[in-house]
């Protein structure tokens, strides 16, 4: 990624500010609580093995990584690593298209 524009990031605080500006009935503090609550609810859902499906945005699910043997980098001893679940995100159609369009716009 050499494109300068891709060095930009939006952090949580800026997301909260942008949402605050787009609506009038909730104070910044309430939007902040709401965003934190949404992220907590989504984390809880994945942590109990429940998928998340947001139309137009994408879906989150868990992928299973089977057990494997690895090595302790310090001692070289082989250790067996148990299987585990990792979160996976699949962007939805609208998000994919908007992101591809951003490349065309430069």
């Amino acid at each position, binding site marked *: *990624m050499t*494109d300068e*524009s*891709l060095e*930009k*990031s*939006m*952090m*949580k605080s800026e*997301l909260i500010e*942008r*949402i605050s500006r*787009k*609506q009038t*009935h909730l104070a910044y503090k*309430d*939007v902040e*609580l*709401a*965003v934190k*609550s*949404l*992220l907590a*609810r*989504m*984390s809880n*859902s*994945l*942590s*109990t*093995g*429940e*998928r*998340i*499906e*947001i*139309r*137009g*945005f*994408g*879906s*989150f*699910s*868990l*992928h*299973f990584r089977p057990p494997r043997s690895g090595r302790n980098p310090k001692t070289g001893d082989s250790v067996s690593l148990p299987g*585990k*679940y*990792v*979160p*996976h*995100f699949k962007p939805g159609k609208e*998000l*994919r298209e*908007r*992101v*591809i*369009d*951003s*490349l065309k716009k430069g």
Partner: protein
Amino acid sequence: MALTKADLAESLYEELGLNKREAKELVELFFEEVRAALGDANHVKLSGFGNFILRDKTERPGRNPKTGEEIPISARRVVTFRPGQKLKQRVEAYAGSEQQ
């Protein structure tokens, strides 16, 4: 069952006492603002949850699987999600018997 926008709105209503219309609007705005930022070439970093990272892919040769005809896959930008430490650890601890 999967968690949907309706469930998220319901939980804002129950947990924070937003009225149903406000809750629904907030959920819509949340995803719309993340999508807008990504569509405007910004990575989105939500600490504790994860980062939505944009990656640019160069054009590469591809093939129509049906006809075997060669067609280039055009340069594109894709979104990937990197879960944060906290989320990864919580999910790892999940010992569900059913594979998703």
